[in-house]
């Protein structure tokens, strides 16, 4: 399955906004390069929650050891697309 990265970015931003109940931001205005820990204030429990939603959404497993690498929406999108491509 070859997914357009921009679609994945928008969907991940939407998930993060919903799960973290972020205000004054939309999936379209969410900066995909914003550091989720240093700027959004995401912690490991948030990441675990987001990972569960992404697992259900995309049918992929996100290894807990990979959490520290998933620092931005764009990086998460690339990670997911790579996983999806590997599964093809």
């Amino acid at each position, binding site marked *: 399955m070859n997914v357009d990265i921009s679609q994945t970015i928008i969907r991940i931003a939407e998930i993060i906004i919903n799960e*973290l109940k*972020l*205000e*004054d*931001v939309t999936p379209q205005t*969410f900066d995909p390069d*914003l550091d989720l*820990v*240093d*700027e*959004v*204030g*995401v*912690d*490991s*429990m*948030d990441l*675990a929650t987001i990972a569960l939603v992404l697992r259900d959404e995309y049918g992929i497993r996100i290894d*807990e050891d990979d959490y*520290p690498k998933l620092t931005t929406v764009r990086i998460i999108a690339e990670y997911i697309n790579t996983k999806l491509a590997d599964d093809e």
Partner: protein
Amino acid sequence: MKTVSSLLDEHWYERYKQISKLNIRSSIYDVTDRCNLRCKGCFFFSSGEHERASEENDVNKWHAFVDKEMDRGVNLAILIGGEPTLCLDRIEAFYKRLPTFCATNGLIKVPRDRFPDMMVGLSLWGDEEDEKALRGKDTFKITSANYAGDPHAYYLYTITPKQLGKTGKIIQKIEDIGLKVHMQLLSNDEDVAGFSWKPEELIDVRAEMDAMLDAYPKTVISSKYYHQIITTGQMLDRTFGWMECPSVTELIDKREPRPKRLTNFIRWASDLKTVHRCCTSETRDCSTCKDGAAHMSWVMVNKRAHMRSTEDLQNWIEVYEMFAKLYQFIPW
């Protein structure tokens, strides 16, 4: 959307970045069911936790157990009692593998040739009078001789209502021997007469803790926000209790809605199989719990809730820094 950098100036943002990726994952371990003191109000003995499990005596099993804990992601072992220093081989199983903190009454000196940089928290329950009343002896006399000047030891000073107006004298004594001190409050699990907190005393002790931090900034490891939280049980618009506590053993945590909690936290009994409910006594009423670590963790796991204003986020940073210092993730 509020971002961290939009709330903090450069100085505070740097402080934030120093701690934001620490990702501390602690668990608590009863090293033994025995102690060389029997303190009135000790949660471990008053709630019968020393009888819940039989100690694992094979040290090889402790080593294997710690390996499994590390596989589970634990990166900070908090050793409590009974009295851990009665079983140095078991402590070593942790210390050789991962950052380790040992809570002790300090009567037995941790041999520094064997544990050169292990952080040691020395329990202290007040002045000579209170120590004798609650613990049967003035431990400070012994612990101060054992640990004076030790850069990897600090006092865990449990303040009782009877200490009001007297904390300065004790903290001065601690400063004089070159150690640090962290303050917490007695929960009085055994209802010892005169040692339960009255509302007006909690107001007074908060002011006194604030004053101690101002007077001894290099000796007292604390924050005024922590004082506020632990004396009021209030954080932002929320009240501490079972449904808020972050320090519940994960294996038995069935709470819904699931609160923000310590990732993978477990408190293990000394048989290495049994788990306790939480970081303190299972018989304790959570609504009156004064456990310092639980309240600190309550703040720490609720970072984004503190992103509503600059002051709130700075408070969060100060509490996280306090925890990180007490467990040697950042320097004093």
